[in-house]
């Protein structure tokens, strides 16, 4: 653990300036991941810039009929927000499937996007890890890899993104509003997180000194037909082996639109828009869904500890479609 100093920001430009003043600065909101990583000797901030007093705690409708969620809205506040619960229940369910109530009470929406993998090697500063120390290697390739990626991995890193909330945001086609020294921009959710490639130490496309301001949801919330399926090693408070966020538009049994993101299987929430497009106009039945899952997992690669996740993912996808079709499944405790 290293010592660090503390700066408190009251305005967004001030926060960015305080962050810019030190190359090893870190923004802190809930801090549930940063404090842990610092204590584990994985993160070494020299300055912690406290952004909790910034005016980013609103949940407000957008002109486009969607919803904008401030980056400092806590996970609990988002999950229990009446509008989100009613219009975007997929998001509410995904958030409530993640972490514990204590963590959700402080963890922010913006921070959730930036949380780091729970790969055991990344978290253990006594081991090699390309994500933590580029170029040192990846013991997970042949080591303990039960929780690791089956899609989009590289020979440099097979870690997965740990978030549940982000899986729902990916399925919902959210966008991320960021601002930095060079101005503000809006990043599509699918472009926010990165695959590991040969730069696994870079998790996201957020630029230096940029700050997440908000997450925006489009109008379509799939309130009628949606599901969040999370498969894990214990009934609650565990990271996903596999999770599926699914939003469906149906015309009777005909699929009008399907948006499906997977968690626990890749370095980012996994979408396959081509596979989704192939579902349009088809009748929703077991064969259609199995074919979709097979296509989506065509390039999946398992290793000793995680090969079981390929079939598990296919079955979780099937379950999500069944649940979404019913539209009334309450998954409160799984």
């Amino acid at each position, binding site marked *: *653990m290293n*010592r*660090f*100093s*503390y700066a408190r920001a009251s305005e967004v430009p001030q926060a960015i300036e305080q962050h810019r003043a030190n190359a090893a600065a870190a923004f*802190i909101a809930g*801090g*549930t991941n940063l*404090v*842990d990583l*610092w*204590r584990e000797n994985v993160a070494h901030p020299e300055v*912690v810039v*406290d952004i*909790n007093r910034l005016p980013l705690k609103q949940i407000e409708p957008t002109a486009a009929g969607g919803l904008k969620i401030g980056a400092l809205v806590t996970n*609990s506040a988002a999950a*229990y927000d009446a509008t989100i619960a009613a219009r975007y229940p997929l998001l509410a369910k995904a958030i409530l499937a993640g*972490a*514990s*109530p*204590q*963590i959700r*009470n*402080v963890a922010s929406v913006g921070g959730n996007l930036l949380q780091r993998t729970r790969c055991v090697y990344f978290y253990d500063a006594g081991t090699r890890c390309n994500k933590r120390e580029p170029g040192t290697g990846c013991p997970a390739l042949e080591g303990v890899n039960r929780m690791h990626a089956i899609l989009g991995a590289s020979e440099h890193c097979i870690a997965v993104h740990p978030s549940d909330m982000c899986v729902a945001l990916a399925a919902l086609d959210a966008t991320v509003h960021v601002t930095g020294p060079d101005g503000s921009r809006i990043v599509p959710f699918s472009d926010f997180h990165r695959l590991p490639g040969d730069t696994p130490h870079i998790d996201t496309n957020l630029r230096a000194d940029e700050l997440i301001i908000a997450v925006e949801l489009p109008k379509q919330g799939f309130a009628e037909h949606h599901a969040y399926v999370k498969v894990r090693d214990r*009934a*609650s*408070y565990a990271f996903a082996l596999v999770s599926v966020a699914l939003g469906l538009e149906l015309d009777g049994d005909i699929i009008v639109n399907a948006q499906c993101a997977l968690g626990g299987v890749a370095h980012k929430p996994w979408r396959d828009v081509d596979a989704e497009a192939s579902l349009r106009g088809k009748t929703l039945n077991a064969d259609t869904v199995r074919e979709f899952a097979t296509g989506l997992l065509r390039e999946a690669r398992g290793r000793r500890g995680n090969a079981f996740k390929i079939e598990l993912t296919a079955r979780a996808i099937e379950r999500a479609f069944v649940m979404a079709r019913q539209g009334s499944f309450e998954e*409160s*405790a799984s």
Partner: protein
Amino acid sequence: MNTPTAETALDVAPSDVQRLPVSFDINGRKHQFEVEAWISLLDLLREHCHLSGTKKGCDHGQCGACTAIVDGQRINTCLALAVVHDGASITTIEGLAKGEELHPVQQAFIDHDAFQCGYCTPGQICSAVAMLEEGHAKTADDVRELMSGNLCRCGAYTNIVAAILDAADLADKGARP
């Protein structure tokens, strides 16, 4: 004025270390400190306020033994930097009883024998008190799910759930929440 100084046990702090003035309302009493940036709320409570009821279990956000109620919300104090929560009102296990009268959740834990070694109990009780305030727990399954941030290595879960349900009924009958 004698302002207590909260020093870390990490190291011998050099004199140029940044010290930050913070104030808290802890169990109804005002406290002021100067803290280093990295002091957790848990260490502040235990080492500097000598409120050792709040336990350090994993120091990692995984066990819930450090749960206290901060500005009405149950949180893991081990993952909270004290300075980030400057100005907060904090209730710990020591602040739940009214004099000799135990909080209904405390009484229910005794009535239901809802602990064995007792180490997780302060966190369990603070978590349960805040959960009942949140108002999302309607069934025993809800209680199990919404108490999942508190582990009990003795495995007293059955009685913990029973105690919480009992306390919730008490609250329904007009007892102090």
